[in-house]
């Protein structure tokens, strides 16, 4: 048996796994995170792994450490055969050559999925990952307070939406606000920017486009929410219990993802359950956009038998695989056929149909955190809207310098 260095390192790294895995020497090794990792054993048993499918050993990773672990795994040649990955990491993994593109023969798995989600996996005209479950951000709102202010739901147009928030704030009373957008979270500003159809980077992803009128308009709208006293100038660490504050009326709109449905049900009393609802994000001219999120499945380049990995992914994306995933985790399956009809879910479907992919460059996470640093400073009065947009461009261009060089040399995707 010939063992090269990469396999040797991978094997050495896997030794601790063998102890914890009842079935050492599984055909395929897989990394998974969070809830999905916890559901994997049951899901795989249901699909018949080890019988009509290759056997799989799953290593659970905490979300907070997963990204670093993938990169160190790549650096040390210790990656498994396949893994769940956050959709925002795909560009990076593809750029460093860690993952295999989805073979054309496997394309059927992408049928019946949301176009914007598939688009996040498409880089350089190739699909690099198979979306597994999806999420996006919608607004959670207080039905009762909106009703008192004379609205059935938050209006979809920015102007009307803001007018409604002013009324809701009055209804909620002294000391309360209308919407919570923690100033250390960039997702709120990117949602507004996507709704305003801002590109944020140029087409090749080599320079910032934050100075474009669409983004400046989005930034101005974002700032006005704080200036007009609709949103508290607070970071997430200052709101110790979001759900309690939501129930108390400290804010009546909270943009968040599908995981919040479970939290609302678990953490708030039964009497409160008819007092909240979900709605798609507002936009300048009507229903706005959001970034498609969720996780996808990837096969790592150079893993021994990638056919095994693809057959596992195929099973996970099949009707029963997607149905069971939904049942075990409450996730929104990537394939629409496995969606269940439930209240508060419809807004996510609408929002995903109106989703737009964020720029797909490895530097994006860094750019977007710089964007939020500047935006927070703007909210605290250090920049005007125009100055802030220009400053974000300066910082983005600095971060993209290497990518420009790579594109020039023809080495970037």
């Amino acid at each position, binding site marked *: 048996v010939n063992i090269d260095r990469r396999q040797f390192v991978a094997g050495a790294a896997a030794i601790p796994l063998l102890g914890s895995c009842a079935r050492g020497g599984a055909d395929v090794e897989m990394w998974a995170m969070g809830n999905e990792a916890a559901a994997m054993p049951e899901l795989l048993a249901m699909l018949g792994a080890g019988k009509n499918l290759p056997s799989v050993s799953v290593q659970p990773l905490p979300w907070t450490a997963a990204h670093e672990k993938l990169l160190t795994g790549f*650096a040390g040649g210790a990656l498994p055969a396949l893994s769940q990955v956050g959709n925002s990491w795909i560009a990076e993994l593809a750029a460093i050559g860690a993952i295999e593109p989805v073979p054309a023969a496997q394309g059927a798995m992408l049928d019946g999925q949301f176009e914007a989600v598939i688009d996040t996996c498409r880089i350089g005209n190739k699909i690099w990952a198979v979306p597994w479950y999806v999420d996006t951000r919608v607004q959670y709102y207080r039905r009762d307070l909106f009703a008192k202010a004379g609205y059935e739901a938050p209006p979809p147009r920015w102007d009307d939406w803001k007018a409604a928030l002013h009324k809701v704030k009055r209804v909620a009373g002294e000391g309360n606000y209308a919407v919570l957008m923690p100033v250390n979270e960039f997702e709120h500003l990117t949602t507004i920017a996507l709704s305003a159809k801002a590109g944020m980077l140029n087409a090749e992803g080599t320079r910032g486009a934050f100075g474009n009128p669409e983004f400046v308009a989005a930034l101005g709208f974002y700032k006005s929410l704080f200036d007009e006293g609709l949103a508290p100038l607070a970071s997430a660490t200052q709101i110790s219990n979001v759900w309690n504050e939501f129930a108390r009326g400290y804010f009546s709109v909270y943009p968040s993802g599908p995981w919040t449905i479970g939290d609302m049900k678990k953490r708030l009393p039964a009497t409160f359950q008819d007092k909240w609802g979900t709605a798609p994000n507002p936009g300048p001219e009507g229903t706005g956009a959001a970034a498609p999120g969720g996780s996808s499945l990837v096969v790592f380049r150079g893993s021994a038998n990638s056919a095994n990995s693809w057959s596992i992914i195929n099973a996970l994306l099949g009707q029963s695989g997607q149905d069971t995933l939904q049942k075990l985790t409450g996730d929104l399956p990537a394939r629409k056929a496995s969606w269940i009809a439930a209240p508060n879910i419809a807004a996510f479907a609408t929002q995903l149909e109106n989703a737009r992919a964020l720029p797909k460059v490895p530097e994006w996470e860094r750019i977007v955190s710089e964007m939020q640093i500047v935006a927070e400073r703007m909210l605290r009065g250090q920049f005007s809207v125009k100055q802030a947009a220009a400053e974000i461009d300066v910082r983005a261009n600095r971060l993209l310098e290497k990518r420009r060089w790579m594109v020039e040399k023809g080495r970037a995707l």
Partner: protein
Amino acid sequence: VIATGRPSERRAGWLLSAPALAAITLFFLLPALASLALSFTDFDIYALSNLANLRFIGFGNYTALLNNPLFWQAMGNTMWFVVLGVPLLVATSLGAALLVNARMLKWRPLWRVALFAPYVTTLVATAVVWRYLLHTRYGLINYALGSVGIAPIDWLGNPHASLPAILIFVAWKSFGYNMIIFLAALQTVPKELTEAALIDGAGEWSRFRHVTLPAIAPTMLLVAILTISGMFQLFAEPYVMTQGGPSQSTVTVLYFMYEEGFKYWSLGSGASVAVVLFLIIVAVTMVQLRFAKRGGAI
């Protein structure tokens, strides 16, 4: 000393220190040189995938660093930590050491253990407790301040209060270690001197000022150097308490380096931060040693 020794002694000396020297070379000197080399390249995720994407960029990382506002903010924050934290820590630990060394104190071993305990408690666990203590609305600290009529302070949310909040936590967490060093030094102060001063009519303060302090001056220097280099390398406390926020008000140089190197994998740029930090600590220590020599502490 070596030059005057006999050749066989010299050989034995080298032989005995060889294991330690080998370990230092392998685990300290080589990595330090490697990171110095790394700091002149733009090692990033692209280079991780293919070394052909690695560029030698000379002082590029350093000029980028000097033009990066976040680096200067981190530097400024670190300076505040040093300027405020070092006197605070040295004074607290010396005070505590004097206290647990005092003869009139009962249950001295118990007090020593109690005051040393924070230092050996897990940082993350204590951080959780301190986050509760510092809570704006339900925290004990604001409750205490409220009882003397001070309005609640948003310790971890206000960019002006977060640094002092971390500083209080750091001081509480780490004064025990310095206290032990001071305690050991205090016990070597000759009793005869103190008694002689007492007979000469020296009061409590002048005995401390003219007998105790000169006797523990070298220890004071050691503690000051350790504390300064510790404060320059502050990382874990802001990492678990505030993650650098709010508004980057608690980003320290080391936290900045961690983000560059391990969050974004810009190892070249991260290495340049490490080199700059190393140079600063060396420079500050040299200045300190010079002052100490002039003052006769060593």
